[in-house]
């Protein structure tokens, strides 16, 4: 097989098709995409690693919705805070499935989510 055999490109998606496993020595998600919280919402990420900061319109300290347009089930999303200004992640019907229902993100704290029907929490870590 050639170096790229089994990798299939289709409409913005690379899929491993002829092999069950992708084995890699090191996984790197690149720099986080910085997204603003405005009116409790965050736009659809374009990366799997994002960093949240407060936006400019009302309700910028609580996030109940993260956009998911084009995201399919199984997508992993890692979220971290950006500054000392807390952004509280809140459980919401149909979007964020969190337990416990709230988690404050500041600069070094992290949360791991997986896309199911909404964004379901995998783990959280308060590193402050």
């Amino acid at each position: 097989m050639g170096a790229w055999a089994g990798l299939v490109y289709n409409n913005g998606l690379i899929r491993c098709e002829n092999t069950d496993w992708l084995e890699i020595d090191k996984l790197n998600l690149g720099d986080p995409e910085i997204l603003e919280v405005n009116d409790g919402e965050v736009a659809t990420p374009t990366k799997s690693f994002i960093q949240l900061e407060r936006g400019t319109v009302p309700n910028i300290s609580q996030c109940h919705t993260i956009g998911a347009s084009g995201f399919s089930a199984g997508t992993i999303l890692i979220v971290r805070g950006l500054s000392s200004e807390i952004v509280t992640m809140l459980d919401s019907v149909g979007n964020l499935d969190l337990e416990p229902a709230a988690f404050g993100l500041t600069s070094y704290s992290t949360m791991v989510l997986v896309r199911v029907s909404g964004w379901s929490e995998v783990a959280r870590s308060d590193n402050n």
Partner: protein
Amino acid sequence: MTAYRGLTHRGVEGGIIGGGVTNFVRLNRLSFGPAETIDVDDNEATATKTNVILQEGSSGTTDSVKFIRGGTDGDIMILRCATSITLEYSNSTDGMRLQVQSNYVVTSPNNPIWFVRSGGKWLELFRAAND
């Protein structure tokens, strides 16, 4: 570099970079392969893989790790200790940022801790005490 529609193959470094026209890399199963075992010397260790086992080295403090050298922002890392050792992960503001900024002691390789590197620091994602 050789491009494969959004994947870039860095032949020399051996890396593959997704992005550009590629929004997702989708796979059925992901493996990080066998763990690399590295020494802790003088509170430090240098990792080159995502899956890492730490063992005691021979220089200075070997039962406490404060800095993991190597890696770049965006890296995911899974740390476990070697069998039959006690290892303390040491929280620091410029090294590993651990839950509630507290050190964490493990005595079994069955207790992994996951990190993402960001801003030059290893930020804890989660840990599992399976023993």
